[in-house]
Each structure stands twice: as structure tokens, then as C-alpha cells.
């Protein structure tokens, strides 16, 4: 089974988000960037499938500026076989990402595309589902367990009420949730080895995809802040305050 793993370079999850004073966006200059945490989980899953023999080849794809190659390199150091870097400095919306991925899927013919359920920058939660629709494939989103059974996958999904289990016939798209696995740290020898793994450089034009955004950002603002309130000394004081507020 051939597995394609799209990965995204985002603001590191530990970095405090700062909104630019002109409200044009979030300040990304000179801040630490990392692989989207959900994508680390999909990379880990693909690598485990490769190690167990379920997957025969794993390919990471990233769409973004020159530095997105670093994110691909991270996935190669974790154990992915090779990379495809679609270079662009433009901001690419999930719909355009899904269209580029569709073109890559048609070229590479993977049996499974596995990716994070959402990126922690725009929190869209769309790309996997959109790719599945464009391909006419089934989807299993928010996976917290995946088992391969012949030409299908049984996937446990984290849903609002608990866990839902569904079966999808391959080829399929799976998006992963937090508790699917614990991603590994790349070892130094693997980081060295990753430097020799190939990354194909491509452009959106190679795939004939129009990146013109459909959404324009009018402004990005700081949410209304909350300030620290008062300290209470005991339960009696707390209950009295909550009664005053009329919330109990």
C-alpha cells in the first residue's frame, strides 16, 4: 500500500500568538515554525504502517514557501521515504490545497492519504474532506484508531458523543486526531539519513491549479481579553459570590 502524507508548516504551538498592530494578520516574522502537530501524528502513523509492512512506500507533500522543505525534511527524518515540495509564497486556502493534492494523487496513485484533521493556524478542518470529495473517495475523519483489513480500513473516530467506528474501502482519505499515537522524535542518525532522501521540487503551475483566494481577510483582531478577577478564601465566599452573580 502506498501512503501519501500532506504536512503543513505552522507557527509552533508553544509560541504566543501576536496580532499585528495594523490588524493585517498574525505576526510570523522571526518566530519558531514547526510541523502542524496533527500532521506529526499522521506522519507517525504512516511510518508505523511502513515499519509493519502494511505500507510499501510513504511520501510526504508540503505546499508552501522554501522553508516548507524543512517540514518535509522533518517527516523524512521520522521515517517517510521521499518528499514532494510544491513551492509557493502565496497563501493557499484548503480548497486550493485539496486541488493540488488531487493532482498529486492522480500522479502518484496512493491507496491512502492520511493527514491532520486541522492545522492549528487557520483551524479550518477542511482539506482532507475536500480531497476525498474531489477524488470521489470515502473518508474517515478524526481517527483515533486505524486497522487495515484486506482492501479496507476500520477506523475509530472521535465524535461529540464518544467513539464511532466506520469501515472505508481503499483508496480513502483519513484525517487523524490527537490520540491516534504519540509521534516519535527523529534520532540523529535518521536526521542525517533524511538529508539524502529525495524531495521533488514542484510549483502549483505544474498541476494547473489556480490559487486565487476566495476569501479576503478584512482584518485580524485581538479577541476581547479577560482580566483576572478576585481571589476567594473559602467555599462560603465562593458560593456567596456565585449567588450574587446569579449563576447558581
Amino acid at each position: 500500500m502506498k501512503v501519501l502524507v500532506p504536512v503543513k508548516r505552522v507557527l509552533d504551538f508553544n509560541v504566543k500568538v501576536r496580532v499585528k498592530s495594523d490588524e493585517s494578520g498574525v505576526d510570523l516574522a522571526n518566530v519558531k515554525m514547526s510541523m502542524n502537530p496533527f500532521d506529526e501524528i499522521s506522519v507517525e502513523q504512516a511510518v508505523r504502517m511502513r515499519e509493519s509492512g502494511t505500507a510499501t512506500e510513504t511520501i510526504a507533500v508540503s505546499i508552501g514557501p522554501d522553508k516548507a522543505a524543512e517540514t518535509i525534511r522533518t517527516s523524512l527524518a521520522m521515517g517517510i521515504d521521499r518528499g514532494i515540495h510544491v513551492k509557493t509564497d502565496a497563501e493557499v486556502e484548503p480548497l486550493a490545497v485539496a486541488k493540488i493534492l488531487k493532482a498529486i494523487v492522480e500522479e502518484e496513485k496512493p491507496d491512502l492519504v492520511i493527514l491532520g484533521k486541522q492545522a492549528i493556524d487557520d483551524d479550518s478542518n477542511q482539506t482532507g474532506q475536500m480531497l476525498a470529495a474531489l477524488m470521489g473517495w470515502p473518508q474517515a475523519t478524526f481517527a483515533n484508531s486505524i486497522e487495515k483489513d484486506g482492501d479496507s480500513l476500520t477506523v475509530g473516530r472521535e465524535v461529540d458523543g464518544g467513539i464511532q467506528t466506520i469501515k472505508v474501502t481503499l483508496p480513502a482519505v483519513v484525517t487523524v486526531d490527537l490520540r491516534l499515537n504519540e509521534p516519535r522524535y527523529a534520532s540523529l542518525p535518521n536526521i542525517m539519513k533524511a538529508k539524502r532522501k529525495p524531495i521533488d521540487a514542484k510549483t502549483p503551475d505544474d498541476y494547473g491549479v489556480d490559487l486565487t483566494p476566495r476569501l479576503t481577510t478584512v482584518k485580524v483582531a485581538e479577541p476581547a481579553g479577560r482580566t483576572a478577577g478576585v481571589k476567594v478564601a473559602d467555599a462560603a465566599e465562593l458560593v456567596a459570590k456565585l449567588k450574587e452573580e446569579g449563576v447558581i
Partner: protein
Amino acid sequence: MAILVIAEHDNENLKDATHKTVTAALALAKDKGCDVDILVAGKGVKDVSAAAAKISGVRKVLACDHISLKRQLAEAMQEVVVPLMDGYDAVLAPDTTTGKNFMPRIAAMLDVMQISSISGVESADTFVRPIYAGNALATVKSSDTKKVITVRPTAFAPAAEGGSAPVETIADPASPSTSEFISEELSKSDRPELTAAKIVISGGRGMGSGENFAIIEKVADQLGAAVGASRAAVDAGYVPNDSQVGQTGKVVAPELYIAVGISGAIQHLAGMKDSKVIVAINKDEDAPIFQIADYGWVADLFNAVPELEAELTKAGY
């Protein structure tokens, strides 16, 4: 034309998230000067459709009753909704795990860039949505002719009831779902649902174990509250995943949120900081949760929570 709202339900009950999504749709409709319809897609949805018809301001309810829609899996929902969109300018669904699952499929088939998790409607084409786990609010304008939108229910008040819209049955989906439902393990609880509860009491890593959640459950039962948890508590296996409040779990905005043994990671705050009143109980007085809490109580939770329970009992709860 008109706006379509996709109802959230479990084939038996219409969920409150639907009423809140209708509020967002009515705001959009007001700017456009058009009507709002509701689609109820499921299996055996007569009661749900009747409940949807009672929401004020709704023109009509479309009911699609078919076995392939019982679980509202994404592929089947796509089959029903995409053909309907010839007659609508916009489609809205709550950003529950169900809506998040099927809506982008509909958007892709319509060649529309979806606007996810909106928290405000500025006009018929301009919306506010949280990004970076709610650390920034983006105002975005869509140039797509049709709009595909998911709505953050906690950001909108529920639409009133009192309407009597007609229910129209529509054709079955053209082809069956390509994914197959196997089973479901739903958490059973007599307490209110997390996202709909007026009071939520959540435990964090500080709870130490799943058994220890019993002490906050007692308080929850006194107050008629739902029980939530931080990601740390879920990852540690204390409670099931569906209790998680936060960026990647549920977003709640109750009247009262009580955080017990929760330090206040950004990830968690993203899911609860719009609560009206926040109470934090933590023994670490430097915990970030105190920076956003209206009432902070620096105390060992294992003493504080039973004290709170006793005090509530005394007050007649």
C-alpha cells in the same frame, strides 16, 4: 434565493445547535432579504422534522428520510445536499463533529471555499471566525457566489420556537454512502450535554485519576452541571475523549465554568474563555488559569471540592 440550515439531530431529538445555527442564518438572510429553510436528513426523522418546523422564522422544513442517512456520514450527506444547492445561496451547519465531517465535502463539490466556525455575521458575505485557537479573530469576506459555512453554536443565541413551517419530503439520495457504519460507543450520562449545559465543571491533570473525578461529579449533580476535562486529563486516560474542552475538543460557553486542577494551557482556554463566569480552583497560585478567572481559589482541590459540596448542601442544593 434562500438559505439552507442543516439540522443537527440523532434521529430522535433535534439538537439545540440547530436553533443557534438558524440564528446565524437569519442574520445572513436579513442582510440578503431572503428566506431560511431547514434540512433534516436522517432515518425516521418525523419527530425531528416536526421539532424543526417549530423554530420561528423558518420558511419550510425539508425532510430526507433514508437508511443511508441514519448516521449522517459525509458521503451520504453530500449526495443529498449538493443537488439541493441549485436553489440556495448559502448552506449552514453547526461545527459539531458531524457538520465538520460533511460540510467541506459539499464545499468542494460546489467549488466553494468553506468558511469554518464563524462566531459572527457582519453581512451576507463577511464573517468573523476565530483562528489560532481563538487567539485572534479574523474577519473574512467571501467572493464565492454560494457560501458554505459552519457555525460555532456557542457564539449565537438559540432561535425562538413558536413557528409552524410546513414539512416537505424530498427525494432519497442518489447513491449509497461509500463508508459503512460499524458501531458506536457513546458515553451515557444523565447529566446535561457539555455544549448545552448552563454550568460546566471540569477537571484537569490535578485530579490525579479517573476515580477522583467522583468528587467533581457530586458537585455537578448538585448544580445540574455537565462534567468536562482538560486535554491532559483525557490523555492521561482519566475520562473519555468526548469530555475534552479545548481547541481540539469541545467549545463551551456556559453561564458558569468551574475549572478544577486545570493549569490553563492556551489549548484549554480556547474552549472555555467565552464562559460568562469562570471559577478556578488550583493549588498553584501562578497557574495561568487565574489570569482569566473571575473567581480564583488557591487551594488543594481535594479539600476545596468537598468543602464546596458541603457549602452547596448547606445552601440547599
